[in-house]
């Protein structure tokens, strides 16, 4: 008898709602999808005739392309809608945009928006599953899954691993998704940043806090570097990128106290020389390109697992 599996959620909006079984299922499924991208004909017919709409209110090339390729490799029809130049600019509300799209019967909506909570709001008004591709500072679940897949591939297991997340934690949706997902998988997380970039009461999310890069990455099995944005300087959160770099840029020097087996990951795009030095970026511990490869597999897995219920009874 074929073993059937299902996620406990019908939307992928926050990693907080997924339990260890869900995450395990996503990673295992993604693992099986990796091989397809190595074939000459990178396509399977699984989602043939399904419609996936990428609704990206915030610009993005890499994430959107990753979702698009994932959908197409499953033979789905993928439509890309960006915020600029769409009805949204003409003042249409988020809910009206969602309802209008829903009237065209998409099978899955992938949403990226600069307001936290937007995919959640959309999911209340559409019937199809919604995947959060990044909402404001809130979450970016698929990034977290591809990070976990990358880590698992090289470490064999997740449980008990120590992770140091370095960078602008306060504004990072990648950090939030990962903090929750990693803890669900039994990993220990430490955040490393200047105090102004650590969100209020983050210890209550179960993480340790450190203001020193060297201390923070000591004993880490995985170091995750986050992007630092120039705008933070203008908001009084940073004195200058130069000073940030002095204290928080990951260089070869820092790695002399760190095991050769320690992985370095980054959600991209990378600010070379500011948060990570070029030689570390291209060094043997860096898994950044693996992350991108795994991103397509993870997103294929999410599409596959969320495939909506139909009214037809197989019997």
């Amino acid at each position, binding site marked *: 008898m074929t073993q059937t599996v299902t996620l406990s959620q019908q939307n992928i909006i926050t990693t907080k709602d997924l339990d260890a079984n869900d995450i395990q299922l996503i990673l*295992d499924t993604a693992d099986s999808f990796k091989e397809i991208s190595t074939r000459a004909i990178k396509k399977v017919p699984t989602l043939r005739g399904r419609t996936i709409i990428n609704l990206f209110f915030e610009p993005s090339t890499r994430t959107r392309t990753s979702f698009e390729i994932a959908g197409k490799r499953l033979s789905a029809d993928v439509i890309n809608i960006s915020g600029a130049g769409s009805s949204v600019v003409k003042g249409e509300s988020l809910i009206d945009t969602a309802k209008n799209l829903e009237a065209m019967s998409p099978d899955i909506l992938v949403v990226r928006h600069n307001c936290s909570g937007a995919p959640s709001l959309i999911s209340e008004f559409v019937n199809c599953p919604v995947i959060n591709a990044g909402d404001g500072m809130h979450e970016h679940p698929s990034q977290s899954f591809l990070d976990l897949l990358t880590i698992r591939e090289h470490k064999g297991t997740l449980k008990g691993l120590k992770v140091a997340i370095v960078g602008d934690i306060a504004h990072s949706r990648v950090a939030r998704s990962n903090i929750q997902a990693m803890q669900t998988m039994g990993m220990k997380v430490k955040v490393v940043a200047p105090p102004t970039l650590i969100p209020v009461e983050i210890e209550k999310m179960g993480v340790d806090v450190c203001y020193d890069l060297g201390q923070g990455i000591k004993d880490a099995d995985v170091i995750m570097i986050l992007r630092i944005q120039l705008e933070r300087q203008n908001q009084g959160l940073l004195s200058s990128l130069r000073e940030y770099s002095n204290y928080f840029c990951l260089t070869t020097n820092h790695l002399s106290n760190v095991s050769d087996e320690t992985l370095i990951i980054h959600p991209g795009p990378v600010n070379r020389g500011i948060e990570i030095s070029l030689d570390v970026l291209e060094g043997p511990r860096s898994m950044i390109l693996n992350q991108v490869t795994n991103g397509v597999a993870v997103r294929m897995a999410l599409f*596959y697992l969320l495939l909506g219920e139909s009214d037809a009874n*197989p019997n």
Partner: protein
Amino acid sequence: MSSILLNQKDIARAISRISHEILEKNKGAENIALIGIRTRGVTFSSRLKQKINDIENTEVAIGALDITLYRDDLGAGLQKPQLKKTEIAFALEGKHVVLCDDVLFTGRTIRAAIDALMDFGRPASVQLAVLVDRGHRELPIRPDYVGKNIPTPKSKRVQVHLKEIDKEDKVIIEEPVK
């Protein structure tokens, strides 16, 4: 309530005979590739590979195919079959691929397997080896090598047990679990 259709000895003899037939039809072991359909088809193909090696002293190429993504009954519910990996580490061009599966029934699995194979490349030929053919085809699919033809009522379940997975070798037929 179940009864045994094939016991361990029957299975061993069938595998031996099929291995000989494969070699006979293809005039030797050259350019043969065995591809087992997950899960027990893979075990079956391993046994054939071993037997072929015993007879002809040649290691034939072997791979494993997961046909879940090619099934024609996906999307019919939220429950998804568990995906397993496809591992075919060689090019199919020029090969005579023998698809191996434990039970041939409606033929839909084999149809999916052939479609999957085509996405990997263009084999010289595709042949089918099954341990048990229980009839009730819904598609025009026919096996090249059969362990045993066993006509069965459609409502009953035919289960192949192989000791690598199931502790002992046997083929049983039983009432479906209510």
